[in-house]
């Protein structure tokens, strides 16, 4: 197990380096790069050219970039926002995290519960209702759900005053309405996760319920409830639990679409701004951030399989 973890960590390191290098080269080769990053001020320009190793081969520039990161202990500076990128991330990640964490943890019991309910009542009215809801919320894009909710809640029913979440200052001034303003984006996220989870849970559980060991457990005298809880659920959760654990890693990356619709000042909005303003140093850092998050999530999923399911022994194949 330990060897496997080390091996995977090294592999991730290699993959991440290759990807970051590719992204770096691609951004450096953009025709608009120099004008956008260096700016017009000749003095700053000279300093930056010196610092980033202009005129040298791209590979060397890449190592200079890494060197600068290590030496200064940060991710560099965003020229457009005139701030340190590390500071931006430190400021924005908690906002996205706060928004994501609550829907994530509330949706897990609801989604799993609905999935179990639907699977146990398969092909009955309950199952049909739940499955219809699931297919609806899986199909309809979150930006449709979000904007429709905004219109009806704010303009038709007038339950909440503003369709957007409160900025920090307003939030401190009026915490009650501030919390209320976060309800809608959280609800959209919640509904999306619940729908996905219910679908997977239902599919997994129906498959387990039809397998032969379930028949055995009933024959040896367990009630439906006992055999479901003790045998079916444990097996059905095996493929689901790792992805839920992997999802924990993604909590710190914001959802672009939700943050845009509800104007949440999180990491997703920063990315959109960086893209629209050609803020390449920020873009580079954010892409690196997203890549590492994605790779870490995959790693966590793979590792937790081994922890959760004793049938899968990590790295045992070689021996």
């Amino acid at each position: 197990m330990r060897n496997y973890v080390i091996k995977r960590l090294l592999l991730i390191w290699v993959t991440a380096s290759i990807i970051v290098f590719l992204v770096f080269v691609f951004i450096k080769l953009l025709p608009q790069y120099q004008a956008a990053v260096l700016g017009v001020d000749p003095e700053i320009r000279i300093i930056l050219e010196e610092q980033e190793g202009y005129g040298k081969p791209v590979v060397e520039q890449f190592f200079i970039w890494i060197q600068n990161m290590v030496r200064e202990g940060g991710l560099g500076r965003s020229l457009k926002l005139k701030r340190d990128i590390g500071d931006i991330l430190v400021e924005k990640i908690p906002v996205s995290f706060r928004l994501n964490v609550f829907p994530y943890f509330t949706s897990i019991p609801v989604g799993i519960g609905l999935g179990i309910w639907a699977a146990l009542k398969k092909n009955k009215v309950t199952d049909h209702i739940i499955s219809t809801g699931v297919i609806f919320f899986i199909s309809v894009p979150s930006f449709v759900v979000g904007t429709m909710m905004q219109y009806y809640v704010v303009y038709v029913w007038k339950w909440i005053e503003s369709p957007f979440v409160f900025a920090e200052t307003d939030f401190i001034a009026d915490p009650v309405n501030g919390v209320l303003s976060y309800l809608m984006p959280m609800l959209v996220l919640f509904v999306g996760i619940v729908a996905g989870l219910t679908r997977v849970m239902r599919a997994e559980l129906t498959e387990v319920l039809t397998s032969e060991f379930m028949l055995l457990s009933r024959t040896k005298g367990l009630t439906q409830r006992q055999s479901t809880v003790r045998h079916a659920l444990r097996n059905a959760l095996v493929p689901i639990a790792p992805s839920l654990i992997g999802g924990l890693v993604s909590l710190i990356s914001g959802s672009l679409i939700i943050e845009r619709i509800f104007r949440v000042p999180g990491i997703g909005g920063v990315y959109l701004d960086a893209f629209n303003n050609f803020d390449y140093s920020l873009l580079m850092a954010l892409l690196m951030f997203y890549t590492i998050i994605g790779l870490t999530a995959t790693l966590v999923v793979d590792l937790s399989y081994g922890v959760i399911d004793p049938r899968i022994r990590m790295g045992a194949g070689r021996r």
Partner: protein
Amino acid sequence: MSQQKIDKSKFVLIQKQKTILDETFKTKPIGYYKDAWYRFKKNKASVVAAIILVSLMIMAVIGPFFVSYELDDQHAPWAQRIADMPPKSDLLDFIPLWSGEKELTGDVQNFSNLPEGMVELVSFNQITNQVTVKVDYYEYIAHKYSSIIDPVTQDFAPTAYTNLTATEYANTLQSETEFGVTIILEDVLVDAQADLILLEEALVAAQAGGNSNAIIAAQAAVNAKQREVDVAQDEVDAGIYTVRLDYYEFLKYEYDIDEVRFFFGSDGSGRDLFKELWQGARVSLLISFSVAAINIVIGVVLGSISGYYGGTVDLVMERVSEILAGLPFLAILTLLLLRFGNSPFVVVLAFTMTGWLGISALTRSQFYRYKNREYVLAARTLGAGDRRIMYRHIFPSAVGTIITRVILYIPGVIFTESTFSFLGIINYGDIISVGRLMSNGQLVMKSSFYQLLFPAIFISLLMLSFNLFGNGLRDAFNPSLRGVEE
């Protein structure tokens, strides 16, 4: 082995004289696809979804042709006047959405001069001293650009007048005589000249009367009118004809817009949303189908090579796939868009960079599953080459699984494309897309909700029917479910 040529006539059927006891099949044999088709037909929801899907696609092809006209960018000022028009249809008039009514908010005096019966009071805001009224927006626009009265001067408001160029003016006059219609309600120069003649006659009469006050007044009126005529004449000399128009008639005769009626309303620059929506649908569908086609070809070819040959080829391809899979789609999309600019081709390219990975992995696993089967061995023993085994023997077994994956992949592409064009990351410039229609609609949803509603309904319907159709197809192609549903 040398080939011997044997004459056909030498062959004799040995059973020809014997009676065959085995009965021939009375029914037609049911193959894999036929069976899938039968079982698909049983799933009512999927059939309905397929019908909706096909009609949406047909509408995407022919929908834009239902709207024959378009005021292009050269006529932007004209189109601007019919911007943000709510949906109206004479057939569906009884449904509130299609009544063509719109709520307007403003000072009381803005609406006090509208004709009787046009406005309906909705609410009055004590604090801001403003009223909200409901009007038939089509009538309101016609009124606004032809005969609205300024609340202060009690004369026609400046918006009631339209500036025409010399050619437009000449064309309009020609249409008037040709078709016998009234388009120009008031011509400022002509009317002023006529008034001037009347006033000059009045001046002559006043001079004859000898009342000095009357003469002075009449002279002042003549002078004022003369200045008006001069100003109008100067404008006409500069090519600007100021008139009051019957605006819809003007559009009808000058720009072939038979009747200003927007079934889905019009957007912020006066374009017909019905046409825009189906054109956006075309883009979305075209992109997703071409992405799916390219990814299937690449994925199946690479997946079958890697699955069939295995070994080093497989190992190398797996490592490459692993790195590609680690690249976030967001990174690929944004970098390609920044590098090559916004065009549908770049978007397709971005989707195909890593999109084939899933299909390739699927094909690979299917090839691993089938390549050691006995029938493949039999084919090889009979001398079939690698290519033949791959495409005549293994691939047909894997095709059902691949089809279902692909069918559910297409709505994923539509979903992603519309999401990123909603975010503004994908932006084709002149070519509209459903996602952009929605993001435009979101900005004005308070006043013009329909601009958000119709694209939202379209995209939801498309995604729902695609997913239901795909699920039905998946169940139909899954042989293990055969006979389970009954």
